[in-house]
């Protein structure tokens, strides 16, 4: 990844924005433990990173913005930074993969990238849960799932299908919407800043 000075500065702007979102509202949302706060944060961050991609339309730019935001997360208050840092970097990586696979030159491509990036939040708690709390915690989770499915009169297999469908579906919709909107907002922003639809 080699960028010119102007590209680096543009990427810094979007990295700062994503970092600022993670530091201020992100810390508050995580501290409050609101449901789907990870999805909201990932969608907001990827929206910013994908708008940045319109300014630096080169491979690796979303990953670069993610790396910058993850480093800025170290400024965050409190000691719970490892999980969010891994999350930010992985979300950016997934979005970058989506852009690579689809060409990265259309609203659809941005929607796919956003959906893939936000989908990471479905896998993230399991990964960090195993690292942070160990297999004991996974045993508790699976036990809770069994108990909950029995209390709702479902068998475990049926419950898993429903839970996974809702769990992943909500993320795909949120991520795709973020990517789609980022494409349009990026175009307007480019026109405002440079008076053209391509970066200078």
């Amino acid at each position, binding site marked *: 990844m*080699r960028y010119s*000075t102007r590209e*680096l500065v543009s990427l*810094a702007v979007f990295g*700062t*924005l994503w970092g*600022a979102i993670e530091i201020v509202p992100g810390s508050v949302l995580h501290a409050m433990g609101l449901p789907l706060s990870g999805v909201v944060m990932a969608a907001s961050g990827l929206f910013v990173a994908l708008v940045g991609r319109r300014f630096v339309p080169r491979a690796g730019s979303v990953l670069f913005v993610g790396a910058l935001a993850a480093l800025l997360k170290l400024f965050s208050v409190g000691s719970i930074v490892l999980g969010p840092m891994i999350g930010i970097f992985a979300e950016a990586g997934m979005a970058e993969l989506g852009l690579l696979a689809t060409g990265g030159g259309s609203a659809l491509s941005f929607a796919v990238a956003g959906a893939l990036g936000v989908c990471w939040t479905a896998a993230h708690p399991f990964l960090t849960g195993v690292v942070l709390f160990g297999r*004991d915690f996974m045993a*508790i989770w699976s036990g809770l799932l069994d108990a909950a499915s029995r209390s709702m009169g479902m068998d475990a297999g049926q419950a898993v299908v429903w839970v996974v469908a809702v769990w992943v579906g909500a993320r795909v919709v949120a991520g795709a919407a973020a990517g789609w909107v980022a494409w349009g907002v990026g175009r307007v922003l480019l026109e405002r800043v440079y008076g053209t639809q391509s970066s200078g």
Partner: protein
Amino acid sequence: MELRAADEGAIRERPESFPGVKEVPGCRGCEPVRAVAIEGSEEAGWVGTVGHLSVFAWVVGLSVAAPPGRMDVLGVLCLAMLLIGYPGAIRRLFFPGGQIRLWLPVLLASLAAFPVLLLSFGWVDGELAAGGRRGAVFSGLRIAERALVLVLAVEAVTSSVDIAQIAGILERIGFRGLGFSLGVAANLLPSLHRSWVCARESLWMRGGFRAQRWRALRLLFLTVVGNTLGRSREIAVAAECRAYDPERSRPAPVRKGRLDGWLVVLCVASVLGVIFLG
């Protein structure tokens, strides 16, 4: 290398004793200037950046790779190593700025009590229920121990390695220009905040989000980012005027320690030992 004020006298007396300090010839009629030479890497005593990161990776690696029956012992080992290696970390973790951080012990106690509570209410069965109350108590203690070890490791590494050092390492593995961008980002944070406050106040004076919420939010975003991009273009022009070229710039120096190599070998060997020998 950081040049402390107390060192200046000693440097003037014996400049040869300070390998990082070099005399740079001054211009005509000026005295030679003593400057700190920034090389590709610099000495940082016993443990450098790579060493600190190895210890952190070791703790995470052991936590992930340890078999269920061994985590108790390995957790205690990690905790002991962190307390010996980073004696200030536990104080900074629980008493930042001299005041107790109450939520952390509460969180750890909740984690420890969680399996016992679930078992008492009969909300879980399977593996946890089979172990009985004693098993649930040990399970809770293991979860809390692992969380404490990892939070302590994060505190230790973040207090020992600064962000510029991590950026330097990332630059070396392919993220060229990340150090420069990080500097620009740190410079832009106050500007972004100012732009956000001005745009938000203007929006509030025009009715805020009471009508056309979506349009208002979009305009707010466009204004904040547009202003920050304008400021960033000034920074880019200033950098180009000073002949900054990301292609030819050197990555930020990484502090090297005398024990770094040994630490890397020991950490990798012990994690591999746990993985393959159990």
